[in-house]
């Protein structure tokens, strides 16, 4: 299956879920399929799963998607154990496995030899709702299921290599952050930027 087809399916299933996307091809394609201020584009390879975990803990009432890659997940495989430890119910972690470092020119990853079962790794790290998807239908079923049940969920999506045409990101990281937080403020009805500075607490009390 192609990643783009899968992303189109996901976009038809979701409403205002938040998306943390990896430093890789999935990010550009996702922003083309669903342009939204609710997407944050990670720059550190491997860190999207940890950022997604933090976001899921901070906003337990909101579904958080993480789009990871096989190379990225290999770099931060320990994050599966940390997610397994903390059990965020609202986290849906999808690893788009194209068996290569596509953004770096197609070098092999841990997945290329075919020895690793990422879904098995996730399940044994404590993410019970963990499954593989090799067809668009399997992926649709896995995502619908994840949206309607408590997680954490892990989906190992085995896709063809190759990147669809997608425009480059419109924002730098700072603008991405401001837009993302403003979006959360509006949709959650909370204040993040306008919290008082810590030192003002001391002044108030003295």
């Amino acid at each position, binding site marked *: 299956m192609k990643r783009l087809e899968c992303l189109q399916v996901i976009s038809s299933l979701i409403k205002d879920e938040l998306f943390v996307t990896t430093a890789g091809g999935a990010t550009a394609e996702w922003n083309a399929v669903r342009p939204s201020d609710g997407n944050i584009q990670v720059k550190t390879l491997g860190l999207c799963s940890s*950022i997604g975990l933090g976001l899921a*803990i*901070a906003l337990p009432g909101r579904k958080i998607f993480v789009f990871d890659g096989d190379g990225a997940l290999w770099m*931060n495989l320990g994050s599966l*154990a940390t997610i397994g430890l903390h059990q965020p119910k609202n986290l849906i972690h999808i690893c788009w496995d194209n068996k290569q470092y596509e953004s770096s020119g197609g070098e092999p990853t841990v997945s290329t030899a075919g020895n690793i079962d990422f879904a098995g790794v996730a399940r044994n790290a404590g993410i019970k709702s963990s499954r593989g998807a090799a067809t668009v239908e399997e992926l649709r079923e896995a995502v619908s299921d994840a949206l309607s049940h408590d997680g954490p969920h892990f989906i190992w999506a085995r896709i063809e290599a190759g990147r669809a045409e997608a425009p480059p990101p419109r924002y730098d990281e700072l603008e991405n952050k401001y837009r993302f937080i403003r979006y959360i403020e509006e949709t959650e009805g909370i204040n993040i930027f306008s919290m008082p500075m*810590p*030192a003002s607490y001391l002044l108030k009390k003295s």
Partner: protein
Amino acid sequence: MGTPIPWSGYPLTVSDLTRAIIISYKALCKQNSLVFERPRLSTESQRQLSLKGVDMATKEGAQQILAGLKEAGINLVASVPDINVLQLINLLYNDREITHIPVGREEEGIGVCTGAYLGGKRTAMLMQNGGLLNSCNGLTTTALQFGIPMLLLVYYAGDMGDKAFHMVGLATEPVLQGLGIKYRVMRDRSKVKQDIVGAATAAESSKRPVALLLSREVL
């Protein structure tokens, strides 16, 4: 049960031997109070460790730091342990106001703090300075590039008077300077609260990580 070991000269079996090894290992560990228990030491074990020459952090130091974190509005702390912050970790495990997120590697913690900040938390990452070195890429390409405020509470191993990890101690301040991360070495117990609240305010207003190096004097 099991196969007798022919060369032993005794009617011992492999499982006898294994059991004996496990029992003596458990006894050894119990003596040192380090394994098979949650990271929480009794006063008595602390006293024994002190007698063995391990300087233990005090509960008072940890309580002051925890109070400082609350004063600064920190409500989520990710952590990787060090023996010198053991007391603080124990307090965090039992604290109800602060969400405590143990992680396996420090760079994960930078990610967790980033995500939690995006969702409205005020965060700190508690670790040793070796872990600070571990998390440099996350700090630059995530925390600094996106402009994410977070407090880095870093135990200063290899500081003056600290026997182990002198190389890490040597690298710590130049690395923070190289990353452009503002920092302060905490040395004065009476200024713990001010230091923490000040650092959290600096982090919040600059929207960057700010580091506090925890020396033994304050722990």
